[in-house]
C-alpha cells in the first residue's frame, strides 16, 4: 500500500504537489489531515499544480478531498492545476465539483433558558392536547355506540367475540395467578404484624376489605392495561402506519365503529368479569396462607370473612371496574391512532398508552374513593 499519499515541494511561488497511493474511503482520515495541512501552511505560493499520476485508486472520498483542496485555493485567488488524472477519474472529480456549493441552513442557535421554557410550554400544551384527545375519543366512541344501538345490524359481533377471547378468556390464568399471590402476600403480612397485638383475626378483615374494595380491581386494571391496552395501541398503530385505517374510511366504514367500539366494549365487559375472578382468587390465596402460615382453619377464616365484609365492599370494587376498562380502552385506542410513520413512534405511543392508562386508573380510583366516602358506601 502506498504509505505516502501526498508530498509537497515549494519552488519559489510555485507549489508542486504529488499524490500517490490510494485516495479512497479507507484512507480518508489520513488524507484529510494531509490535505488540510497542505492547504493551511503553503500560503506563500501563487500557483499550485497537483500531479495525480501516482494515484492508483480514486473514489468519491478522494475526489471530494481533492476538490476541497482546490476550492480552498481558488477561493484565496490562487491558480490550481490538476495534471495526470486519468480520464475516467476526471468525470468523478467533475461530479464533485458541483456538490456542497450551497451549505445547508445552519441549525438556529437557541438560548438554553428559552429552550427549557419552550419544553415546559410544549409539555403543558401536550397535556392539554391529551385531554382533548381523550374527550374526543370518548365522544366518538359514544356516538358510535348510539349509532350501533339504533342500527344493531352494524354491530361487529364476530370481532367483539374474538376480542373478548383475547382480552378476557386468555387473560384468566395470569390474572388468577397474580391475584392469588397478592392475596396470599397481604394475608401473610397482616398475620405477621397483627400477631404482635394478638389481633390475628383482624388480618382477615384487612384481606377481605382491601381486596374487594381496592386491590382486586386495581391489580386487574393494571394487568389489563399492560396486557391488552398495549396490544390495542400496537395493533391500531401498525394498521395506521400501513394505511389500513385510511382504506377502511375510503370504503365507507367508520374506523371507530369497526375497530375501536368492539375493543372498548370488550374491555368494559371484561374488566368486571376479570375483577370478580381476581377477587375470588385473592380471597382463596389469603385463606390458604391464613391456614398454612397463620394456623387459622378454613372454617374460622370463612366465618370471620362473612362477618367482616358486606355486599357494599364487593359492590364498590365491582362498580369501579367497568369505568377503568373504559379509561384503558379509550387511552389505548386514541394513542394507537396517534402513531405516525416511523417504527420509533409506534414504540413511543405504546409506552405512552400503558403509562397513561395506569396513571388514569389510579387517579380514577382516588376519585371513586372520595365519591364513595361522601355517599357513605
Amino acid at each position: 500500500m502506498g504509505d505516502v499519499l501526498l508530498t509537497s515541494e515549494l519552488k519559489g511561488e510555485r507549489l508542486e504537489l504529488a499524490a500517490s497511493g490510494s485516495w479512497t474511503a479507507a484512507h480518508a482520515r489520513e488524507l484529510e489531515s494531509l490535505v488540510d495541512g497542505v492547504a493551511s501552511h503553503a500560503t506563500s505560493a501563487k500557483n499550485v499544480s497537483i500531479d495525480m499520476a501516482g494515484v492508483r485508486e480514486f473514489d468519491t472520498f478522494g475526489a471530494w478531498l481533492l476538490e476541497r483542496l482546490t476550492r480552498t485555493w481558488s477561493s484565496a485567488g490562487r491558480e490550481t492545476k490538476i495534471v495526470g488524472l486519468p480520464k475516467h477519474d476526471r468525470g468523478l472529480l467533475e461530479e464533485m465539483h458541483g456538490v456542497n456549493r450551497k451549505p445547508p441552513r445552519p441549525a438556529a442557535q437557541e438560548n438554553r433558558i428559552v429552550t427549557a421554557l419552550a419544553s415546559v410550554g410544549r409539555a403543558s400544551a401536550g397535556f392539554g392536547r391529551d385531554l382533548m384527545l381523550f374527550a374526543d375519543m370518548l365522544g366518538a366512541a359514544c356516538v358510535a355506540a348510539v349509532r350501533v344501538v339504533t342500527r344493531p345490524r352494524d354491530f361487529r359481533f364476530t370481532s367483539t367475540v374474538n376480542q373478548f377471547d383475547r382480552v378476557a378468556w386468555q387473560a384468566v390464568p395470569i390474572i388468577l395467578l397474580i391475584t392469588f399471590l397478592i392475596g396470599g402476600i397481604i394475608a401473610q403480612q397482616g398475620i405477621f404484624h397483627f400477631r404482635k397485638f394478638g389481633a390475628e383475626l383482624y388480618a382477615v378483615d384487612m384481606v377481605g376489605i382491601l381486596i374487594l374494595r381496592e386491590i382486586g380491581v386495581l391489580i386487574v386494571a393494571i394487568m389489563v392495561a399492560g396486557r391488552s391496552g398495549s396490544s390495542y395501541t400496537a395493533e391500531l398503530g401498525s394498521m395506521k402506519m400501513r394505511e389500513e385505517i385510511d382504506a377502511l374510511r375510503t370504503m365507507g366504514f367508520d374506523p371507530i365503529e369497526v375497530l375501536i367500539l368492539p375493543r372498548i366494549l370488550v374491555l368494559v365487559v371484561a374488566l368486571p368479569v376479570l375483577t370478580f375472578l381476581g377477587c375470588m382468587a385473592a380471597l382463596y390465596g389469603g385463606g390458604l396462607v391464613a391456614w398454612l402460615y397463620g394456623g387459622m382453619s378454613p372454617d374460622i377464616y370463612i366465618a370471620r370473612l362473612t362477618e367482616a365484609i358486606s355486599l357494599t365492599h364487593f359492590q364498590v370494587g365491582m362498580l369501579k371496574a367497568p369505568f377503568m376498562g373504559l379509561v384503558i380502552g379509550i387511552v389505548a385506542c386514541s394513542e394507537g391512532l396517534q402513531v405516525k410513520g416511523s417504527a420509533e413512534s409506534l414504540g413511543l405511543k405504546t409506552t405512552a398508552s400503558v403509562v397513561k392508562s395506569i396513571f388514569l386508573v389510579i387517579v380514577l380510583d382516588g376519585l371513586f374513593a372520595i365519591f364513595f366516602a361522601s355517599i357513605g358506601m
Partner: protein
Amino acid sequence: MTKKIVIKVRDLVVGFGDTNVLDHLSLDVRAGEILGVVGASGAGKSVLLRTIIGLLPKRHGSIDVLGVDLDKANEAERRALERRWGVLFQQGALFSSLTVIENVQFPMRENLDLSPRLMNEMALAKLEMVGLTPDDANKFPSELSGGMTKRVGLARALALDPEIVFLDEPTSGLDPISAGDFDELIRTLQQTLGLTVFMVTHDLESLYTACDRVAALADGKVVAEGPLEAMLECEHPWVRDYFGGKRGGLLADRRISA
C-alpha cells in the same frame, strides 16, 4: 472484449418447503455493466438477489462475488465483502428513526474512520449526486415521497463507494417521469463511479434505457441472457410474450425507429 466477471452464480437451487424457486440456475455478471433481471411475478428475481447478498439460504450451488466464494469466506471476509456492495431495497428500507443524512452516514460511521466534517460533506455530496438538495437532509423518512425515498436509499447504498450495487425494483411505484429520471440517474452514476449494477426490474422502460444486458428468469432458470436484441429473438414463450406483447412491442418499435 471480455470483461472480468464479478458475480458468478453456478447451479443455484433455492426453495421454500417443497418447491424450488430457483432450480439449478447459473448466471454471470460482468464488471462495469448494468444487468437487468426480468421475470414474471414470483419467478424468483428477488429471491435470486436476496440469495446473492446472503439474506436467504441456498440448497445447492455456489455463489462467487468479487472473487470470493461466499461459502468459504469466514466472518471477517464476508463483512469486508459486504462493504464492497450496496443494496437498494424495494421499499427503500430507510431507518425510520434517523434523518435522511443520518441514514446516509450510518454505513460510513460504522465502517470508516472519518472526521465529523468530512462525514457531513460526504453525505451531502452523495445526496446531491442522487439529485436531492441539502434542505432534504434533515427530514425523516416518513416525510419523503416515494421517489425521494428511493433516492435516499440509493445514496445510502452508495455511501461506501461500493463496486457492485444491487437494486430491487428501483422504479416500481414511481410515476413514468420519475422512473425515467431514476433510470438516467443510475446510468450516470454507473458511468461516473464505474459501478456494476445488478437490477431486478419489472419495468420495460428501464431495460431499454438503462440496462446493458438482460437476463430473463422463468421456470427457475435463466432462459435468455444477452443484450435486448437477443431477447427479441428468443423463442421461450414467456420471453416472447413479455418483449413481443403490446407494451413490449411498442417500446421495441420506438427503439428501432429512434
